[in-house]
């Protein structure tokens, strides 16, 4: 079973997301990589060093600007004969183009796999992560999937370099969206819905000012997004765009630090899929403390500044 993993060229070279996606692909079979973008040199060079990669294809050109779904799908289809399966990270690029590949190949896509049980059996989240579903793809059909990268370990880089080959960027004549512009947030804090680390505060923070004063330095130190419980939002400490919970945002960061949040079930419903949960709370019986992987019981107004001091400065 040979998989073609499609990754996007990035200025930073090879992202951790791409390395995790490759880790997933390698669990299925042998894997080659297709790098697509306007400037692919760095990414493809590093991709070639991935432990276990067969070959790296590069499809580079100005037409790849915006990484539009039609161009990516057509380019992948140009290589489709050679592979048994196609994979991409379930990021906004992968989610955008990969179903087109599936439709063109007349197969179903398996979206956002979180586990590879076998080369034809995969597990994926359904009902907003409330359940896990295990599905089997039919034998003999091509495999198309997207990968929830947070569920896989990043593949290691070795020293050897796989061969790199250029392939054409295919642009359909008609029916292609035209890239106009892009604006990346670069704002103060990472977006709550996609942040890797979230620092979240509850009503115990006491006031708008104390909420801000206590959490902001910690969020900055960790390059984290800021979230809040419903009670904190209702009390006016922050706006409801920061509300995490059943009626707010549902998040699944790598690290969720809940500060002064008791953990009403409606809140837990919004963050229970976080990889690691830390609770800092006065009340050791609080549901959040019981749920957390690590809990620190005490006065948050003392502990949070202590925590900031104890964290290495350059962490992101």
């Amino acid at each position, binding site marked *: 079973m040979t998989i073609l993993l499609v990754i996007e060229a990035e200025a930073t070279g090879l992202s951790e997301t791409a390395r995790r996606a490759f880790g997933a692909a390698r669990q299925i079979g042998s894997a080659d990589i297709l790098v697509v973008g306007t400037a692919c040199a760095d990414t493809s060079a590093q991709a070639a060093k991935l432990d276990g990669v067969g070959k790296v294809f590069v499809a580079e050109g100005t037409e790849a600007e915006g990484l539009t779904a039609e161009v990516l799908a057509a380019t992948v289809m140009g290589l489709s004969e050679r592979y048994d399966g196609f994979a991409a990270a379930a990021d906004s690029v992968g989610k*955008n183009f990969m179903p087109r590949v599936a439709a063109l190949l007349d197969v179903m896509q398996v979206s956002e796999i979180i586990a590879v049980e076998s080369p034809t059996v995969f597990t994926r989240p359904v009902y907003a992560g409330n359940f*896990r579903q295990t599905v089997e*793809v039919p034998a003999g059909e091509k495999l198309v999937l997207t990968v929830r990268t947070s569920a896989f370990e990043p593949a290691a880089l070795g020293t050897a370099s796989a061969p790199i080959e250029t392939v054409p960027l295919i642009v359909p004549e008609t029916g*292609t969206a035209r890239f*106009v512009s892009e604006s990346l947030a670069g704002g103060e804090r990472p977006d709550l819905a996609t942040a890797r680390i979230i620092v979240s505060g509850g009503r115990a923070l006491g006031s708008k000012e104390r909420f801000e004063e206590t959490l902001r330095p910690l969020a900055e130190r960790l390059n984290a997004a800021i979230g809040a419980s419903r009670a904190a939002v209702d009390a006016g400490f922050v706006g409801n765009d920061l509300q995490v919970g059943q009626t707010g945002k549902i998040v699944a960061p790598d690290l969720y630090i809940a500060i002064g949040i008791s953990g009403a079930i409606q809140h837990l419903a919004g963050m229970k899929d976080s990889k690691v949960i830390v609770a800092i709370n006065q009340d050791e019986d609080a549901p959040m403390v019981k749920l957390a992987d690590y809990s620190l019981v005490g006065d948050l107004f003392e502990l949070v500044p202590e925590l900031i001091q104890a964290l290495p400065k350059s962490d992101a």
Partner: protein
Amino acid sequence: MKILVPIKRVHDAYLRPRLAPDGSGVDLEKAKMSMNPFCEIAVEEAIRLCEAGEASEVLVVSVGPGACQDVLRTALAMGADRAMLIEAPLHVEPLSVAKLLVSIVEREQPDLVITGKQAIDDDSNQTGQMLAALLGWPQATFASNLERKGAEITVTREIDGGLQTVAMALPAVVTTDLRLNEPRYPSLPNVMKARRKPLETLSPDTLGVDIAPRLKVLKTEEPPPRKAGTRVADVAELVDRLQNEARILRAES
């Protein structure tokens, strides 16, 4: 401009879904069902385009059992003009839905198809994109803004880390994201009027589409419960464990 909006009837977004005790999957027998929230946004967007004079007709279509008529009536009550039900079993895969929609598109010749980005039950996030590919149409997924400019539409998309704007010549497919709009409530007078709007029923056979599923669902289960946590004595221990045990924070180099 004629707009086609496919909608899906799913387990109500605010209810906690449960697994049926016989292992057959999620228990939908007693569950309250509603229009998929992203589909509601799609219907709303289509109606707004009509109200702005950019479109003249909104046709909604749903694939599923007869009970789906209720979400179709809700869409009509929001302001859609016509509704179609493609009568089919409860679970039809995105690939099959896309093929059914291709035949509807060929019948109805819409200029624009707006769908929700994903259904909150299977979370596949495929149907809109597959439909676009089968039709050879351009697509703009995760739309947070949509504007028509003559024979083109400009869509702002939510992407990782920011926003992207694309332009597409019609006909095209758009899938909606949460921030595109806030759907209106159907008013009671409109609910009453919707009962008299046309609702057509079709079958996959007459449309010539094979809807047999490709994927085999082996099991649906709850995620494993979280392991019991650890009480840490102080900040130092917390940082240590986060760095060295959970390996979530990088240690100082």
